[in-house]
């Protein structure tokens, strides 16, 4: 097998340490005498390094994961922050009555690993749920909040 048979994607595998020893040897031999391949490797390396250097995207302060509830035995997402479709509104309304296990979890964004006392933003959720449903004259809105607060014990 000639060195020229190496596919271009071998370069990414080479950078990522995903080649076996035999392929690595062939790649390095080709890189030694193929300037175009070296340029390709440099370009891929630049992109890869930039991706890996990106900071981790942080959720906005107060982001609430969940709550989730069960409707007719089916777990559904309940988004108390936004109202988007009639179906979603209906699901929330049903779930507000029939939730078997709804949980609101607020992220402690600043110190996610050290904060054990989570304070779900029930007031905000309640207001938003009520306002989201008021326009449609949904009687369930008076039953807000949807979520049930949970106090976590430390790990």
């Amino acid at each position, binding site marked *: 097998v000639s060195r020229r048979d190496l596919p271009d994607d071998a370069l990414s595998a080479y950078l990522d340490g995903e080649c076996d020893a035999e392929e690595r040897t062939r790649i390095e031999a080709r890189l030694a005498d193929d300037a175009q391949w070296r340029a390709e490797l440099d370009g891929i390396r630049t992109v890869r390094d930039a991706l890996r250097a990106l900071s981790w995207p942080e959720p906005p302060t107060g*982001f609430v994961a969940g709550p989730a509830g069960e409707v007719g035995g089916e777990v559904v997402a309940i988004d108390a922050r936004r109202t988007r479709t009639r179906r979603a509104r209906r699901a929330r309304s049903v779930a507000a009555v029939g939730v078997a296990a709804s949980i609101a979890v607020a992220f402690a964004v600043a110190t996610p690993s050290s904060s054990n006392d989570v304070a779900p933003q029930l007031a905000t959720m309640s207001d938003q749920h009520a306002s989201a449903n008021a326009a449609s004259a949904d009687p369930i809105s008076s039953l807000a909040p949807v979520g049930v607060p949970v106090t976590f014990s430390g790990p």
Partner: protein
Amino acid sequence: VPDGTPTWEEVARDHGRFLYGVAYRLVGNDADAQDLVQEALVRVRRGLETYTPGSLEGWLARIVTNVFLDEKRRRRRRPSVPVDDLERVGGSRGVHAPAPEDASEELSSELQRALAGLPEDFRVAVVLCDVVGLSYDEISVSQGIPVGTVRSRIHRGRRLLREALS
């Protein structure tokens, strides 16, 4: 539920930030990332019943990428806005990223925009490799595709990113 399996609440509390980060890199804006996390957590809750303790973040990354791909397929079947238009603006509700204040933030924003423009199969492979840090084998298992396909998608994705940034 086997020993070592976290509860749904523990996943949301301890790995919500991880889920959000992966989701954000996949969709490129805050609102869609939040939606993705919510749906992923619903699947987490269902999936914990059959979860085998192992690489939890690998498992979570698989769930959030599957939610992302399912949503893309659903939009293609019933597009209310052409998918290409969604890609151009970085999501159905626009790009949330704040205005860049320095060179590093500007590069980050450009890279995120370029990432959002990748075909989703390439995007998922690149995000799982370069953002989440999974190995090719782990991505192969996670996505149910051969390692050779993983390798090809990662490389082609990176090459497209380089072209978009040059």
